[in-house]
């Protein structure tokens, strides 16, 4: 770990000025960044601690909920409004990491967390995400945890967040501040696919700060479920996870939201599968059809062929839970 500076500005303006300089890095809960610094994967010269900014609140927005970037994962998961309006988000958060980590982790930090690909973490191995053009260790290496959707030959890593899978399904919007002002970005456009530039995880510019996410009101609260399949019951990343939300009227599906985790370089929203569900009865036949559509275009590597089967199994299982059939 090399020597670095640490500052804790009190205003958004001073944070924005600080992060505009090269070599700086925002730190929130530190639960991902400090780990990466210890491993020598990231080595910023200066940490800009944003914890003095007033971004911790969870407040009603115009039509929905506004969740500050510094709200803690545990705080959001247990928030009354969140549990009432968006139980899916609460479930997804509680499926992530451990209680201790959720007490440190923030919404912004969670969104920005980096892949857990072992080749990214080990500085003795090749990794295009860590060092562009050094090669992808995972492509022909140990790739049990890796992507089946949207990967490239440069990178087959997956994005590990559970929270973000729910936010992608819930049509959330990201509020971003830059020196030139604020902008809004659909959550599903926040993260990106690796393509030829896997070193770039998402569409947040280096000199920008996440202020909040906003989730619009919906009719899914009654029928939503987050199912995470993993190697142990807690404190493990998803092999495959599914966020499922249904709006059911008299046994017929009026609307559906579906997203997968553990399968791509970003939360994998399944819009085609969602469409296939609309107007259908909430039963296994509809869910199986949706799962089949969802898996179109999936591609497995040496160790992760099981995801081609686990994917649809998890989708149908999550939908059944959401529909209250199990």
């Amino acid at each position, binding site marked *: *770990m*090399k*020597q670095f500076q640490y500052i804790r500005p009190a205003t958004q303006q001073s944070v924005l000025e600080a992060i505009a300089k090269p070599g700086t890095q925002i730190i929130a809960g530190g639960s991902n960044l400090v780990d990466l610094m210890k491993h*020598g994967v990231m080595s910023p010269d200066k940490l800009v601690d944003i914890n003095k900014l007033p971004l911790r609140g969870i407040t009603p927005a115009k039509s929905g909920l506004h969740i500050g970037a510094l709200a803690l994962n545990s705080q959001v998961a247990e928030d009354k409004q969140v549990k009432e309006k968006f139980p899916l988000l609460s479930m997804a958060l509680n499926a992530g990491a*451990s209680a201790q980590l959720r007490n440190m982790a923030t919404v912004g930090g969670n969104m920005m967390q980096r892949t*857990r690909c*072992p*080749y990214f973490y*080990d500085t*003795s*191995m090749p990794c295009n995400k860590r060092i562009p053009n050094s090669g992808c*260790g995972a492509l*022909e*290496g*140990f790739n*049990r945890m890796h992507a089946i959707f949207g990967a490239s030959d440069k990178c087959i890593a997956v994005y590990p967040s559970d929270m973000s899978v729910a936010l992608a399904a819930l049509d959330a919007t990201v509020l971003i501040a830059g020196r030139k002002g604020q902008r809004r970005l659909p959550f599903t456009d926040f993260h990106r696919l690796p393509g030829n530039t896997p070193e770039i995880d998402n569409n947040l510019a280096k000199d920008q700060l996440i202020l909040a996410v906003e989730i619009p009101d919906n009719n899914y609260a009654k029928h939503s479920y987050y199912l995470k*399949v*993993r*190697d*142990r*019951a*807690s*404190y*493990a*990343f998803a*092999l495959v996870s599914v966020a499922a939300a249904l709006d059911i009227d008299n046994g017929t599906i009026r609307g559906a939201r579906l997203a997968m985790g553990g399968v791509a370089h970003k939360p994998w929203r399944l819009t085609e599968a969602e469409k296939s569900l609309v107007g259908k009865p909430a039963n296994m036949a509809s869910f199986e059809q949706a799962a089949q559509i969802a898996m179109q275009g999936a591609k497995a590597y040496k160790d992760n*062929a*099981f995801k081609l*089967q*686990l994917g649809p*199994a*998890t989708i*149908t*299982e999550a939908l059944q839970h959401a529909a209250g059939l*199990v």
Partner: protein
Amino acid sequence: MKEEQLLNIPGDYTDGIDRVDGRQKVTGAAKYSAEFNLPGMTYAVFATSNITKGSIKSIDTKAAEHAPGVLKVVTHLNAPKLPGYETGKDPSKPATGGGPLKLFVDNSIKFNGQPIAMVVADSFERATFAASLIKAEYTKEAHNTDTAKSLDKAATPKGPRFSDYKRGNPDDWKTAPVNLEAEYILPTEVHNPMELSAIVANWTAADKVEVYDKTQGVKSTQNAIAQAFKLPPENVHVTTKFVGGAFGNALRTWPHEIAAVMAAQLVKRPVKLVLTREQQFNSVGYRPYTWQKVSIGATADGKLTGIIHEARAQTSTFEEFTEGTVNMTRFMYACPSVGTIYKVIPVDVNTPTWMRGPGEATGSFALESAIDELAAKLNMDPIELRVINHADTDPENGKPFSSKNVKEAYQMGADKIGWKNRKNKPGSVQEGGWLVGYGMGSGVFGAGRGRATVRATMQSNSTLLIQTSVTDIGVGTGTAMTQIASEVFDNYPIKKIVFELGDSSLPPSPTQGGSMITSTVGGAVHDACTALKQKFQQVIGNGGTDKPDYAKVLKEKNLPQLDVEITSSGSSEMRNYSAYSHSVHFVQVKVHPKTGVVKVSKVVSVADSGHIVSPKTARSQIVGGAIGGIGMALMEEGVIDHRYGRYVNADLAGYHVPVHADIPQIDTLFVNKPDFKVNPMGAKGMGEIAIIGMAAAVANAIYNATGKRLRELPITPDKVMMA
């Protein structure tokens, strides 16, 4: 709060006393090796190789040497020659016989992660940073770390215990009316105790060194350091007051311990060296990858006719590590014809070592799975098959067992878990969308008694001081020994007994391991306390009461204290018996038919290990072993990318052990019948049997739930789903 209230000592000790060091452990007062801080402390950190085989062409340490706070950088180019390193023992001898890797003696690289340099600096952070600046160039050679692909390179080890075994005509399994042959695979497993390996070394004179070390045996560490530095053993003082779990990884003295002592000599200041979690994977052993094959046959009514059990296990290229993987098959069941074959496969890794239930934990997964498979083929209850083939005497040598109550253990466990609810036909029970199954597996481990010396002293303030060098690796040795002393001394108050351990200057006890300590040290504590009582009777002379007031006696006789030092070991009568501890594990699992997720929903572990000296710590032992066995069955695997020869999951996020949410309530039952042939308490060890047989029990339950037979550990959801 008063001490008595905290200790919660019951009036009679039938439930067992609380851990004597429990309060220290939960309040942080317990001091582990890495927590000893000496004035002028310095810190040593390794830089390690990122190639797997070859040699160091050049190594650039300049930047590290000039980094802030750095006192010394040691490499093979400047390391002092240790006098004892010249007298290397025969490398073909079994693990402890051949020396482990010697650091910084030449430029050769034998495995990935091997230390190539050691930085000593005035802070841990500065040493870590400086170590990151070291750059080496290598001449690479082609390496092989893939044991699975090297099964044909297996060779019979040189030690006599590991030559092929044969009785009767083992091939009889082939002609048996019911038979099967199956292969089982156990991956590399890493001990990963909470406490990292750590040592603080300090030279107090030119020829005297003190160390605070994480070790399971202060005496063996003392000897290893004395040998390396050619010192009289008494000039090496080793202290190990607490151990935060070890499971075998501190059974021998590893290179980092010698390196820290060397560093302290070089910088003439105390040195602390703590391995990183990642380094643990390459530095302090692991349970070796092992391929096994069991061929087994029986008559139509279930009488075994022949078994062949074969194992091939990973070792390093420079040391032959061996363990008794196949040995239990020779005596576990009454079978006229048995063959065992054990081979090792040298690959470019560091040497494996014993890990909880060494050998048998691996072997029992194969044997106890095969027995279950055979029962399924016979359409027979697996307990019934075991009872039919119960060995009344030891089939390997014809000797009677010192005691064996497994039939009773089967019954106790079956009753407790509700074995009657198990359907012999797999996949026949569903509950809330989950398949439900039951399985069992049994374990066995030698119950020997070794030699130990114990000093017992009655002090003028009526404190009974018991001293011996043994370490407590977390199992509760101090508690069990206190309880034994109390019992011998007619229920002497626990509060007045002090058990002092973990110090090489105390009377010698063996290394903590192999389920020997309760029997060995307990036996010596028993004998020392008995002798001290007798000494008191002599001092008092005629008319002494049963329960004298010891302090008063000392005062009256004008004695500062009264003590004895007793060395004792097993009786020669023991040679006429086979002595083993037995366990039987029962589990209920729920398996998700679509996702392959396995939930262990009930566990009952029964131990047949003689009289239970300390029920509370015994229960903890069994619970810990059961959890270890569940991890072994479902999660644990050290994964190496063989292209690079490097681990890809060398941390606790990637290397999975069970978390609380994976573990149901665990019921522990004890047959609790004393075996006085082994020692005067009638107690036998139970550290190993707690895990041995558990992995098979889980795999067998998964079969019962799903009809899927999984023969490769760990049984992760993908394997269940794809089977």
